[in-house]
């Protein structure tokens, strides 16, 4: 019953999106908002129905309803409830349903909450959003039905990939999707505004909070995913330049560029066409990412199934939407008037530089991700890995971070370059001193990590400088948000650089009682012992660790063996200190009483994710600030209408 209800909700949602699309496109004309009263509730209802359908799937997984194919293939009655719950999206069909649900809910939220956007543009936006939804509903209903019944009811399900059986699964995919798919709103705004010729300041001010919202989720999702890979895979790495990671990084880069260009448009009415273009590009990156991950072209833990039909379906949708939006852009770009002019040395100038550098990095990541697919089509197999990505993207990323520190110190319209240099002289000297110190104290540190630290230190300082000379209590939340986000980037960079510059690694074959030294720690291996969980058994290596003369503590890395499906995984034991993490993994026994142990001391590695979280928090502060400012602006308008002196009058 539940399965049929979920499927019915999905069909209804698809029908509503067809109606929303038809009505919307039929009604959309500059200055005409007749049908908004119809389109708005349609979008909300569509979001609700998609949500119901998704809840139905979660219900089926929690119940372990074995009459449903998807549950049989991906769940098991013995699984802890959290993984039954999160297992709903730990597979192809379920994750696509989550994708579509976020798309529909985002559309519903726009219909419900957006009051600033011109009404005719809002109709266009909702029509565009429905057009995207419709395609992906079709994909679900015709090529990836999550509610399909299984012909025979087995005794139990086949279980979930043990690597996914981690609390991270409950958090990482939904967060990432809210960002990934939430950026569709920016795309629809851009399409709507192109149709009604509404690209300007008000449009940008309306779009900004939505971009910000999606970007916060995307940042959180990437940060969480990186930490998850770090502790779950047991390789001690936090970013592998894996195509699926790149698939999430590309929309983030585009969304970051968009976030900054939309600010220029909202504040100074410049960069009009460019901002619209970026909004289209950002969501196109999300769709390309979905295609790469879900089509089976790439195989990894994220690609649940290989099915060429699905690949071509998504590819078709992708070409349709991106091609359609670009064609519309080409047709209408001449109607988008040029924005306000500005000087090179100005806040606008620095934001243009930010956008150019982000675009370069985006192109490089895309090139590195797609190039192996291209060459393989011509018969040469190559792999583009970390050496390439680090070499080509790091110089631009470092430049970007330096300008990120300087940009907010410039005035809008025009500023004096010499003044800026005077203001940043101290931080720049500090950076040079850092570089010098590293070269003297640790001469064998590679160039990139050294530069990373030499950039991170001054930029952290520079990012705080917009607060200098302000009354901190009266500083707007938006400024705090920017400062926090920029400081977070510097912090994250410091973590990355320090991890790759100062990590220590030891690999030993240890007998019980054997002592190893790693960084400031002494690790004594006490032997291996069996342990068991709800659906796994494991061998845990007991290590007694001591830092210098400090207290002893115990670490227990495990080699786990899961039942259903039978799979071995290794669970690293990680001990966090204020200045870094000790990361331990147990390998195989040699059959003569010794065990392989791998130990890492990673100084300051936690800064990477603290920094990432701070970036997201900064985004949240800015969003709160925007929403509050908008609300008080609206209040003062109504106050004036009622004859009460507004804020402007009092000020």
């Amino acid at each position, binding site marked *: 019953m539940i399965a049929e209800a979920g499927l019915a909700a999905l069909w209804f949602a698809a029908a509503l999106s067809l109606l929303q699309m038809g009505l919307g496109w039929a009604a959309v004309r500059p200055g005409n908002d007749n049908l908004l009263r119809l389109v708005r509730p349609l979008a909300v209802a569509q979001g609700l129905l998609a949500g119901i359908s998704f809840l139905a799937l979660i219900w089926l997984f929690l119940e372990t309803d074995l009459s449903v194919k998807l549950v049989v293939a991906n769940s098991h009655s013995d699984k802890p409830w959290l993984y039954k719950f999160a297992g709903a999206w730990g597979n192809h069909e379920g994750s696509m349903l989550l994708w579509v649900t976020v798309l529909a809910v985002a559309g519903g939220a726009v219909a419900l909450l957006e009051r600033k956007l011109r009404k005719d543009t809002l109709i266009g936006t909702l029509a565009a959003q429905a057009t995207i939804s419709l395609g992906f509903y079709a994909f679900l209903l015709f090529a990836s039905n999550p509610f399909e019944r299984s012909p025979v009811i087995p005794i139990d399900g086949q279980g979930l*990939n043990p690597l996914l059986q981690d609390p991270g699964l409950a958090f990482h995919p939904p967060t990432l999707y809210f960002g990934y798919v939430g950026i569709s709103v920016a795309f629809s705004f851009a399409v709507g505004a192109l149709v009604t010729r509404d690209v300007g300041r008000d449009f940008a001010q309306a779009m900004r909070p939505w971009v910000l919202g999606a970007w916060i989720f995307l940042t959180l999702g990437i940060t969480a995913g990186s930490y998850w890979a770090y502790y779950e895979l047991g390789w001690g790495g936090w970013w592998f330049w894996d195509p699926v990671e790149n698939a999430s990084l590309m929309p983030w880069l585009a969304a970051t560029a968009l976030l900054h260009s939309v600010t220029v448009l909202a504040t100074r009415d410049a960069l009009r066409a460019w901002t619209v273009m970026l909004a289209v590009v950002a969501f196109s990156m999300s769709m390309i990412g979905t295609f790469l991950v879900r089509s089976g072209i790439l195989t990894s*833990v994220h690609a649940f199934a290989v099915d060429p039909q699905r690949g071509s379906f998504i590819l078709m949708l992708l070409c349709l939407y991106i091609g359609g939006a670009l064609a519309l852009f080409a047709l209408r770009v001449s109607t988008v008037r040029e924005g306000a002019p500005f000087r090179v040395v100005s806040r606008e100038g620095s934001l243009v530089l930010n956008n*150019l550098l982000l675009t370069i990095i985006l*192109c490089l990541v895309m090139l590195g991700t797609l190039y192996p697919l291209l060459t*393989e089509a011509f018969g040469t*197999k*190559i792999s583009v890995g970390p050496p390439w990505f680090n070499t080509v993207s790091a110089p*631009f990323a470092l430049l970007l971070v330096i300008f990120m520190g300087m940009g907010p110190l410039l005035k809008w319209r025009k500023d004096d370059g010499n003044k800026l240099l005077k203001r940043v002289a101290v931080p720049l000297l500090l950076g040079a001193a850092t570089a010098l110190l590293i070269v003297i104290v640790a001469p064998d540190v590679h160039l990139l990590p050294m530069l990373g630290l030499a950039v991170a230190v001054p930029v952290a300082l520079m990012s705080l400088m917009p607060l200098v000379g302000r009354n901190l209590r009266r500083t707007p939340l938006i400024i705090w948000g920017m400062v926090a986000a920029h400081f977070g980037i510097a912090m994250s960079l410091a973590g990355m650089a320090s991890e790759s510059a100062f990590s220590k690694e030891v690999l030993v074959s240890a007998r019980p009682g054997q002592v190893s030294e790693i960084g400031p720690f002494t690790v004594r291996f006490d032997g291996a012992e069996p342990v068991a969980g709800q659906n796994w058994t494991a061998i845990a290596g007991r290590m007694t660790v001591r830092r210098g003369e400090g207290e002893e503590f115990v670490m227990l890395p495990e080699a786990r063996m899961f039942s259903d499906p039978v799979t071995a995984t*290794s669970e690293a034991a990680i001990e966090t200190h204020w200045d870094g993490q000790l990361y331990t993994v147990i390998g195989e026994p040699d059959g003569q009483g*010794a065990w392989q142990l791998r130990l890492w001391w990673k100084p300051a590695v936690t800064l990477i994710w603290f920094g990432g979280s701070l970036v997201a928090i900064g985004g949240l502060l800015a969003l709160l600030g925007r929403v509050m400012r908008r609300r008080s602006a609206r209040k003062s308008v109504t106050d004036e209408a009622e004859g009460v002196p507004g804020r402007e009058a009092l000020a």
Partner: protein
Amino acid sequence: MTRAKAKTQRLVLLSLAVGAVLVAVFLGMSAMSSQASLFYAPGDVQKMGLPLDRAVRIGGMVKTGSLERLPDGVTIKFIVHDETTSTIPVRFTGIVPNLFREGSGMVAEGRFEPDGTFVATEILAKHDENYMTPQLAGQNMHKSESLE
């Protein structure tokens, strides 16, 4: 006047953007030849000769019965083969991924030594039983042959 100025500015910005993309692609492609690693199956080594000057990837099946551990306890040796008669001897120091075993497919990154031994710096993990790197997919080697 300002309109004309704005037009010029748009033109400058446009050419900057196009320039940026071109620079990115150019730099990326020129680094590709030195930084990307080519993929070799055992049969390819015979055909194309040993690539000694750069890091490459190899892939194939771990030959059943070939896996041995060296006395240091952390280094292993094994032989990789494919459907041709060629084989590659591989040496690796480290902890192998959980799904690495004899008779199963694997991909490793590293360098060849002049004697033809491949010294792996990294053995790529399979995330699960169904996972295979794209390079192996075409070779029909993702299925374990240990069931023979």
